[in-house]
């Protein structure tokens, strides 16, 4: 009897081709907009054209009169049912449809439900709204001015536009560190507003059945169970009567975590009309009203010793949250995990202050391919370290090496209190440097400069916290951040697996089966994976913040191990030996003294239904809820080489090397796909992707003409390398990976451009590093800021 080949059965480490592709490549995906229900009506939303105004009147009579219109809903309709406002994921409230005033351009004012979407759109245009304009504040500095108009005059105890002040770290210790410093390096950055923009926009089909009292909602959501809980609370419907189905999702990146007014209104419309109501957002609606990301002003300083040792760090940030504080983030941390900054460096003391401010811009502040502000944290960290290297006249690779947490220093408590557990930071960096030819680069750079060419290499190294919880520290609205898996082994040895996560392109249907294959020796193709239906899937917190493999993936292992434990008892019974004499190898139990006598997992499964030992509960199913002991801490070194054209400021990526250590890779092909996707979004943010506003609060970036996403033509090629340091607490040693490259990547590109022009005296160019900004920096030898007032006039 030869042992099973794990790769052959599609287990851990197999670059198994994806199961879900079979339908996607045939055009047989099942996205929300692909679903048609009998008698379905269509909803369209009317949005505010102005950013801040009192609503004087709304006249819907013309809309009502149009043929094919079934219902017009305004804030008044909702207020009569106590639904005009809804809670956000950050303990704030958000208007569903505006009643008193509009607070940002694009805010939802009314909805029309009609026989077809064209009629619904026409009818929206027939609604007449009279506005009385109010002063508009498009950045937090305006909103913090004395006497600034109160955006949230709906809230008691909200005397101004400040949402919170928050601090973390060791203020006194940091003070002392700065007193001892040989040199203090400073930096000021604006991380511009960005939007995740999955190619599929948001949408829902609400279907309330009066006869059964059941509400079924098909929805573009990354977290169906959280939505079910929210609907139960907001609409006061019994939770068992609510079924949220997230069918195939056309990309999420955080955009599909929050609860949006469109979902809520479509649900109410279906309840009122007793018909299915479909709402599909158009792209402009998506860009101007749904969860944006970033929009944060960061300044800080670093206390340094001459030899490059970092003694302490201060960070100070102001976050522009828009009109409603609706970040999806763990309850405890007002500014997300911004304080995960500097986790890969051994720094004695650090302190961070954060302030959140309301402005007349769309709410959201979601984690766009990011665990709750980790992107801003790592960008600040790597730009700060780069600046320190320039100020010290030190090699940027060397300053990182000097300060890295050493391989034998784990577990390591970071200056902000996180516990990191594993990594080989120097090895990753050196591998990347060797790949890009760093040894000879400085000479190459020097020679190129003599010929008028500007070359630069940018390094970004970071470890980031992925896979929230644990439940001690992480909850959303009080719900603890664990996850779940339910595994059923049928009598023929085939299996059905369900989890509380929801894939939006990550390939769960493929990789989850591989975990089962690894744990039980069942061929991956014998395991069907289902997700996204709250009536069938066990409760879970959904897929975002790179948490699925760390949390749901671990739950799958635990459920499979429960199955294995029971199957072992059955095997002992079949082999007529005691359980202690039974050994396990992949897919098979055998008698220790007689290895040729064994029972396969499939045979044990059959016996669980046909020949179980006396007194044993029949069947072979298990459910596991997994509360991780800690976050997982992948590490990455991203190194970009660029050439800047001194005549135009245009920069090209010559090479991009990525070294990722995300622990054990379940499906290397899929992991690499995630890394390349992340690198592309990193490049996008560094080079072109941002949303700004003019002084009236008009969103500049409300369509793909203004909001630039990179195409295949601009996107550089990527060279990927791997290092594997297993996660010590994850059942199969895996760490999160989905967001790493989007988090760590931007600083590599920006650092590369700065490296090319720093000899001119330039230390910072804010993102996006547009050619005109680079050109200005080259011509003036000065930093170029993207912060207001420079860019507020569009």
């Amino acid at each position, binding site marked *: 009897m030869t042992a099973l080949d794990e790769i052959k059965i599609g287990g851990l480490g197999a670059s198994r*081709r*994806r199961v*879900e*592709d*079979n*339908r*996607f*490549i*045939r*055009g*047989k*995906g099942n*996205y929300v*907009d*692909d679903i*048609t229900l009998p008698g379905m009506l269509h909803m369209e939303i009317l949005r505010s054209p102005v950013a801040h105004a009192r609503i004087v009147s709304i006249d819907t009579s013309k809309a009502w009169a149009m*043929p*094919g219109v079934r219902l017009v809903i305004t804030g008044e309709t909702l207020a009569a049912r106590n639904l005009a406002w809804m809670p956000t994921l950050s303990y704030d409230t958000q208007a569903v449809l505006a009643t008193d005033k509009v607070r940002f351009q694009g805010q939802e004012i009314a909805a029309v439900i009609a*026989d077809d979407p*064209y009629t619904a759109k026409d009818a929206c245009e027939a609604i007449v709204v009279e506005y009385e304009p109010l002063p508009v504040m498009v950045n937090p500095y305006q909103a913090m001015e004395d006497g600034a108009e109160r955006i949230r005059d709906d809230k008691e105890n909200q005397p101004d536009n400040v949402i919170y002040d928050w601090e973390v770290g060791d203020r006194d210790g940091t003070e002392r560190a700065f007193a001892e410093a040989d040199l203090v390096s400073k930096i000021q950055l604006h991380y511009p507003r960005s939007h*995740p*923009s*999955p*190619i*599929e*926009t948001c949408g829902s089909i609400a279907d309330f059945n009066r006869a059964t009292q059941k509400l079924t909602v098909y929805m573009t959501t990354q977290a169906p169970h959280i939505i079910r809980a929210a609907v139960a609370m907001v609409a006061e419907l019994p939770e068992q009567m609510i079924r949220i189905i997230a069918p*195939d*999702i*056309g*990309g*999420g*990146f955080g955009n599909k975590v929050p609860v949006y007014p469109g979902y809520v209104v479509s649900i109410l419309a279906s309840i009122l009309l007793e018909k299915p109501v479909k709402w599909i957002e*158009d*792209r402009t609606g998506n860009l101007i009203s749904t969860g944006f990301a970033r929009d944060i002003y960061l300044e800080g300083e670093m206390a340094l010793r001459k030899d490059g040792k970092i003694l302490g760090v201060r960070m100070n940030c102001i976050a522009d949250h828009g009109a409603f504080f609706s970040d999806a983030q763990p309850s405890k941390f007002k500014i997300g995990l911004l304080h995960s900054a500097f986790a890969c460096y051994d720094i004695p003391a650090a302190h961070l202050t954060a302030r959140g401010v309301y402005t007349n811009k769309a709410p959201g502040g979601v984690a766009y391919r990011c665990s709750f502000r980790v992107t801003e944290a790592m960008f600040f960290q790597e730009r700060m370290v780069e600046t320190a290297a320039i100020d010290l006249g030190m090699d940027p690779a060397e300053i990182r090496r000097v300060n890295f947490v050493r391989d034998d220093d784990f577990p390591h408590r970071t200056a902000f209190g996180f516990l990191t557990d594993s990594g080989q930071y120097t090895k990753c960096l050196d591998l990347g440097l060797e790949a890009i030819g760093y040894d000879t680069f400085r000479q190459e750079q020097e020679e190129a400069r003599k010929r008028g060419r500007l070359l630069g290499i940018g390094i970004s190294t970071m470890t980031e916290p992925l896979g929230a919880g644990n439940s001690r520290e992480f909850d959303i609205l009080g719900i603890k951040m664990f996850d779940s898996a339910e595994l059923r082994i049928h009598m023929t040895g085939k299996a059905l697996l369900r989890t509380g996560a929801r894939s*939006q*392109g*990550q*390939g769960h249907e493929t990789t989850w089966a591989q975990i089962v294959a690894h744990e039980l020796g069942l061929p991956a193709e014998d395991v069907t994976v289902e997700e996204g239906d709250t009536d069938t899937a066990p409760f879970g917190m959904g897929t975002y913040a790179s948490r699925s493999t760390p949390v749901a993936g671990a739950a799958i292992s635990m459920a499979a191990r429960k199955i294995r434990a029971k199957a072992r008892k059955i095997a002992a019974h079949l082999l007529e030996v005691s359980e202690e004499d039974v050994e396990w190898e992949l897919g098979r139990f055998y008698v220790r003294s007689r290895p040729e006598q064994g029972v396969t997992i499939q045979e044990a499964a059959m016996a669980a239904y046909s020949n179980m030992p006396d007194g044993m509960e029949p069947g072979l199913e298990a459910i596991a809820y997994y509360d991780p002991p800690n976050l997982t801490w992948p590490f990455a070194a991203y190194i970009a080489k660029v050439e800047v054209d001194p005549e135009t400021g245009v920069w090209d990526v010559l090479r991009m090397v990525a070294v990722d250590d995300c622990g054990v890779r379940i499906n290397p*092909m*899929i992991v*690499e*796909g995630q890394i*390349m*996707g*992340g*690198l*592309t*979004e990193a490049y996008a943010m560094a080079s072109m992707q941002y949303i700004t506003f003019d002084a009236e609060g008009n969103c500049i970036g409300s*369509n*793909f*003409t203004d909001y630039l*996403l990179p*195409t*295949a*033509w601009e*996107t550089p*090629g*990527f060279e990927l390398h791997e290092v594997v340091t297993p996660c010590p607490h994850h059942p199969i040693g895996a760490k999160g990976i989905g967001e790493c490259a989007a988090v760590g990547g931007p600083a590599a590109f920006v650092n590369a451009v700065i490296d090319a022009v720093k000899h001119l005296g330039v230390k910072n160019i804010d993102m996006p590093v547009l050619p005109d900004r680079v050109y200005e920096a080259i011509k003036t030898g000065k930093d170029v800021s993207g912060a207001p007032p420079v860019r507020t006039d569009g």
Partner: protein
Amino acid sequence: MGSLFEVVPADTQDEVPRRRVTVTVNGTPMSAVIETRLLLVHLLRQAFKLTGTHMGCDTTHCGACTVLFDGKPVKSCTMLAVQADGHEITTVEGLAGPSELHPIQEGFKEEHGLQCGFCTPGMMLSAKALLDRNPDPDEDEIRWALSGNLCRCTGYQNIVKSVQWAARKMNPQQGQEVSE
């Protein structure tokens, strides 16, 4: 809608201009009476129930709605259905028969050229138009041909490889053999 009747809401007014269009979709002539303002993408998705053609932007940027119009890639969100009257349209559902796969479809699966799959039908049709006129494109030619199709998931590198895989399979003489 049956052929004998069409149930309409009681308050329907008749003045909306309508026209009959006949389009050959994936080789089969299909007909519908439509409002003249109906977009081609909606004719395909809603009238003909071919939901493989997606919509991601409605402004001719994302390419999720790409179909072949007499063999040329067009964005069906920016074309009226009446413009397609008498023409031939190929959608993702027509790339290959139900049991077999087109080499481009195989290539996307083999080279992990898709993640969420939302851009994929449009991407594959743009790739088909390219390979139909240039069976052995280099990387730049592929990237340029696909630059009207946005993908937020993959970073394009594997999409390029997918198209190369398909090119090799379709023309085994050119380039290297397909490794499977």
